């Protein structure tokens, strides 16, 4: 089985981003980067499928040179080789441009299965996986909890809202976006790190003329930052205020 995992490198999840001068993107020089957490679940799932069905796992990533870091992390955990669509212009690119870049490099490989995370921790559009499927011309499904492979066909368990689930069958090749939290990514072993140094990372060029489909015209800190609001007043008053804020401000209850 030839399994591809698309992994994005994003600024560290718990880092307070600082804006660049144009105020349309973050100041990357200030940031430290890590593997997009939702993609880690896809990677672990791919590695488990390989252990079960044999074959190879190929890490695919589209981004500037620094993306090599997460590629190596994936190789150290057992991915067999990698494809890096290397282009400085891919930093902060929108989902369409990213998917186009990945598709151009992935087409010829004829992967049996492509796994991605649900969305990225930086932009969070949740589009790349689905757009990639369209560009590769293969069926897809999203928010997948479980993958069963039987020869040339696939049966996946998709999560629906409200505690409902659904099994879906489709032929291979296919693209799946994997639900977060379904597994725990294995750590990089010493042997894995040593072996990773010898694994192939194929560089590909980004396709020319991929137009951005959206433009960030302004990026800013929202008014309500993450500051603790201590609600005062009598217990009855405080309780009432809290419920109101949860309803209208935080919008976590109806």
């Amino acid at each position, binding site marked *: 089985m030839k399994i591809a995992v698309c992994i994005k490198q994003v600024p560290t999840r718990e880092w307070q981003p600082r804006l660049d001068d144009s105020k349309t993107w973050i100041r990357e020089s200030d940031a430290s980067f890590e593997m997009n957490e939702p993609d880690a679940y896809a990677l672990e799932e791919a590695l488990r499928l390989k252990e079960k069905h044999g074959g190879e796992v190929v890490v695919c990533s589209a981004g500037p040179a620094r993306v090599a870091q997460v590629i190596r992390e994936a190789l150290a955990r057992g991915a067999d080789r990698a494809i890096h669509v290397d282009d400085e212009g891919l930093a902060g690119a929108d989902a369409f441009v990213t998917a186009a870049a990945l598709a151009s490099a992935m087409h010829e490989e004829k992967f049996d299965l492509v796994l991605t995370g649900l969305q990225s921790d930086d932009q969070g559009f949740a589009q790349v996986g689905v757009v990639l499927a369209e560009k590769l011309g293969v069926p897809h499904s999203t928010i997948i909890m479980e993958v069963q492979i039987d020869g040339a066909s696939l049966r996946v368990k998709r999560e629906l809202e409200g505690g409902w689930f659904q099994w879906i069958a489709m032929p291979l090749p296919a693209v799946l976006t994997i639900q977060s939290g379904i597994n725990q990514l294995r*750590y990089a072993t*010493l*042997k894995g790190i040593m072996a990773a140094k010898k694994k192939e990372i194929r560089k590909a060029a980004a396709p020319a003329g991929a137009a951005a489909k959206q433009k960030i015209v302004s990026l800013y800190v929202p008014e309500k930052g993450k500051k603790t609001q201590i609600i005062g007043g009598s217990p009855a008053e405080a309780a009432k205020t809290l419920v109101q804020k949860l309803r209208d401000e935080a919008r976590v209850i109806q």
Partner: protein
Amino acid sequence: MATLIFWLLFLAFVGVFAAQVATRLRLIAAAPNTFDLSDAGDRARRWLADVLFQRKTIVERPVAGLAHALVFWGFLAFALYTSVEFLYALGLVDLTGAGWFHAYRLALVPFASAVLIGILYLLIRRAFARPAGLGDHVSAESIVIALFIATLMITYLLTLRLEEGTAVWTLNWWLHMLVILAFLALIPASKHFHLVVSPVTVFLKSPELGNLPNLDFEKEQVGLETLKDLGSKSVLDAFTCVECGRCQVNCPAWGAGKALNPKTIILQTQDALLAGERDQKLGAIYSENVLWQCTTCGACENQCPVGIEHLPILIGSRRGLVSNGDAPEYLGAMYNNLERRSNIWGLGYDQRTKFVTSAGLETFDPAKHDVLVWLGCAGSFDADFQKSLRSLFSILHAKGVAFGVLAKERCTGDPAKRTGNEYMYQELANANIEDLKSARVKKIVTSCPHCVKTIGADYAKFGYRVEIVHSSVFVNDLLQDAGGAAPAGSADTVTYHDPCYLGRYAGTTDEPRALLTRFGAEIREPERNRDNPYCCGAGGGLLFADKEEEPGSRISDVRFKQLQATGATTVVTACPFCSIMLKGAQASAGAETQFVDLMTYVDGKLRAIG
């Protein structure tokens, strides 16, 4: 004629002895060389204290230890006698008539009596009292050896009593010599092999507790995977074990009813080596789950009177498992956290920055600051422990100590090292050393004993040396000049829990107590304290373990009961992880015990004085 018979017997028994010794020597020689003679002065000093003066044997078990010491000293005293008799029996030289020999034989009488009393006491203790450390069943071989020794002393005394030259005397003499020969043959395959090897083992034992050399990745070292990977010192250790059980009864995991038993580990090693299956996986020999129950507190190694080092075997085996991806799941999560965020909890760096800002801490500048304060993981991210650090800062400010913190700190790598993830440890260590060097740090103060051990002792293996002291030592020094009058009516009754990495590893036991008594506190000592505390259960990665499926109780619960038993209502701690574990135990027990960190206690007293 008698001489001929004696020669035959001599050659036979010595042959058996030599063959068995040879087997063991071959196994030692075949193992990768881990013998080390550095710091010979320290080793010699320790050798004198522990071998010659039997210090370790006596301290943990005074009566039995003294009894053994008597037997040992007697053994030494008899060496010359035995040699003379053998030379005579082999027909080589006859010194038995010499005047000095007579005087010597009389001088040996008190020794013989002492040995007899000692061995009889030990025999009764082993056979009838049956203390836990000596195992579930009485080994026949131990009884035989004890009876041999008793026989040797009795026959010796009889040679002085009986009339020389008579048949009875001759029979007695032959019995004495035969018992010696039989004893000789029994030595290598029994725990009495320690007679031969333990002086060597003690000398070769590292002066550093829990000595774990770095893995050399250039040489593709991955840790201990199979039996043949065990180093020569570990093989020697396996044959040195006297089965006394000091390691076992002091082990906090064993004390909490878990499967781990350091004595069993050593004996399993011995059995496996003699069975000769060099390719057998260590994880199978020791049973993997047991390997993950060790907190690396070091009690086993510290108590061993014959120089065995348990930690290189335990942690070395962990390394082999971790390198192959066989670490338990909770450690996998911890390793991912260290890789992504450089701290064990995977928390965002902004939290540390927030604390540094709110506490008004300055970035370390060698031109301005006397010392660097190393916050550590807990200091950077645990709001509870940060209260203790604020107390420390307050004390330092009050005493006019100029200090700063590093702009960027990563975990020292201690949890990675102790759980066997050597790669992660070296990544963190090398990065920290770079930062410490470029900041030109000369002296570090920290409140975390694990950081003291790692930065102070382990980083030295990379060639990085820096002075690092625990805050209790630093503050105690600071207050030496200041008078310390206890505020009136303030006799607190407290109990102090020695952190393993402070009391045992660093030997720092006086300074924390001095800080408490200086302010008039009455310290009620728990049953395990000072350089032999009972672990809180956080070390060795066990902070994240807590698997309910394991048998026995939680190590932290056992320790908390010990602290409660002192009757003190306040527990003073000096380590963030001891604090986390013991507070957790307190919450589980539903107790009302107060916990206060040492620095908070001292700061409170200083403010009260004004």
